[in-house]
């Protein structure tokens, strides 16, 4: 082969590596810009008052988003309470009985559920929970978020458990350990970090959801710890305040946006750390 044609090939290689590298760098720019914007606009609102006080009436300066922080925490906790055990156990089933017809049906349902628009989930939970209780509530918001968490938890559990070697399960069975104990005490603990990653990612997914909360948790300008009353949430507060005519509320909305994005970033970093372990 001629030397010059070899040179051209090398040049093409470098060009290709350059292009894919450049695309990857371009991808990071939007995220960096988002953070830059949020920090410049919302950074100054974040202080102790912001985190510990409820909003003031329009026109008054100061106040914080404590009610929304409590609300989001409570909503995520309620959602996790049901979706984590249910999601893990379903994930165990479809990874254990990969070829059963039920598993196939479950997988399809999970895929469809994952693709269901969150606003639709909101409106359905409105009919299921809010109407019978004739009350917007944290419970209904928790149900809506819980439904959205399920697909992520089920899928990561299935994928994680699929990586656990059969030999480990056999080691336990051969010691005379019953099947259910083998799953609960060997298989799940061994896949724990993967399952935990799924849980963290599912939380980070729903923590910023607004649409399913519009007809369920509804929002509340005041502080409440009751799960039977309408409750605020960070994304709801952003929506309400950003569309209001008051400059102070706009400030709070920027601060809240920075807070929620920061939280999601943190959850993702923790999830990454857990996976590496």
């Amino acid at each position, binding site marked *: 082969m001629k030397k010059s044609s070899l040179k051209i090939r090398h040049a093409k290689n470098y060009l290709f590596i350059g292009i894919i590298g450049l695309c990857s760098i371009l991808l990071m720019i939007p995220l960096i810009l988002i953070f830059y914007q949020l920090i410049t606009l919302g950074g100054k609102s974040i202080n102790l008052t912001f985190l510990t006080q409820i909003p003031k009436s329009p026109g008054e300066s100061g106040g914080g988003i404590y009610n929304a922080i409590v609300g989001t925490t409570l909503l995520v906790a309620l959602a996790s309470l049901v979706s984590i055990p249910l999601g893990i156990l379903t994930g165990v089933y479809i990874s254990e009985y990969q070829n059963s017809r039920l598993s196939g049906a479950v997988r399809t349902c999970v895929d469809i559920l994952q693709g269901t628009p969150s606003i639709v989930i909101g409106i359905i939970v409105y009919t299921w929970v809010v109407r019978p209780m004739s009350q917007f509530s944290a419970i209904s918001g928790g149900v809506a978020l819980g439904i959205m968490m399920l697909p992520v938890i089920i899928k990561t559990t299935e994928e994680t458990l699929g990586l656990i070697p059969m030999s480990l399960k056999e080691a336990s069975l*051969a*010691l005379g*350990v019953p099947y259910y104990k083998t799953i609960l005490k060997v298989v799940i603990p061994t896949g724990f970090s993967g399952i935990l990653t799924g849980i963290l990612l599912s939380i980070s997914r729903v923590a910023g959801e607004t649409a399913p909360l519009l007809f369920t948790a509804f929002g509340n300008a005041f502080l409440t710890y009751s799960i039977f009353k309408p409750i605020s949430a960070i994304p709801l507060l952003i929506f309400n305040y950003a569309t209001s005519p008051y400059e102070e509320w706009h400030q709070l909305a920027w601060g809240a946006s920075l807070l929620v994005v920061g939280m999601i970033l943190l959850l993702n970093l923790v999830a990454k750390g857990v996976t590496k372990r």
Partner: protein
Amino acid sequence: MTESVLRLDHFNFFIGENQILNDINLKFQRKKVTAIMGPSGCGKTSMIRCINRMNEWVKNARVEGEILFYGKNLFQMDPILLRRKIGMVFQRPNPFPTMSIFENVIAGYLLNGIKLSKTDKERIVEDSLRKAALWDEVKDGIHRKGTFLSGGQQQRLCIARALAMNPRLLLLDEPTSALDPKATSHIEELIIELKKTVTIVLVTHNIAQASRVSDFTAFLYLGELVEYGETTKMFTVPEDKRTEEYLTGKFG
């Protein structure tokens, strides 16, 4: 003749339409090492997995005939209780990655929820690790994770884990196939030592290993028991032509 611990009586094993084992009649002597030898796919592993009923997890698996364990048909026993009396060590070392060395040894008790006092735990762990010739190497780091050990040490840990349950029978499924020669010779010495206290069934595709450690040898070929007898005799004057050909490396 010494007492037989385990006897296969007109035993057949099928997976779906395929017959894996064909009319096996075999007796295992107490406190002896019996090697099951044969080329890949001859049914060696299937056979010992029938003995502790691990094959029941295989889809469409079916057995005919009997396996008698101390005179009782083991297919009528509770598989969970049976497996506590029959220990098994697998081809690849498989210590529990979430557990320390200490916990791995008593995993059979921990996972079954059997309560032990602290002194009992320590006694069982030390005894089992000594029997598995691992105690001296790990006694200073017994609460470290078992997965930090070398392959050979992990396999001895798995043997200790099986011994901790005080089994009457120990099934070894090609226990050295994933190990280097040095670790292999360690395990072989250990097997010879262990037969003082426990009956051992050793599956191996390594002819030399069978001759080094076993008292009796069964030669399986295509799901049939071709020949069974004392190892020294079979390796010097095999009765069947197929055994002779296998031993001299003509196939397998």
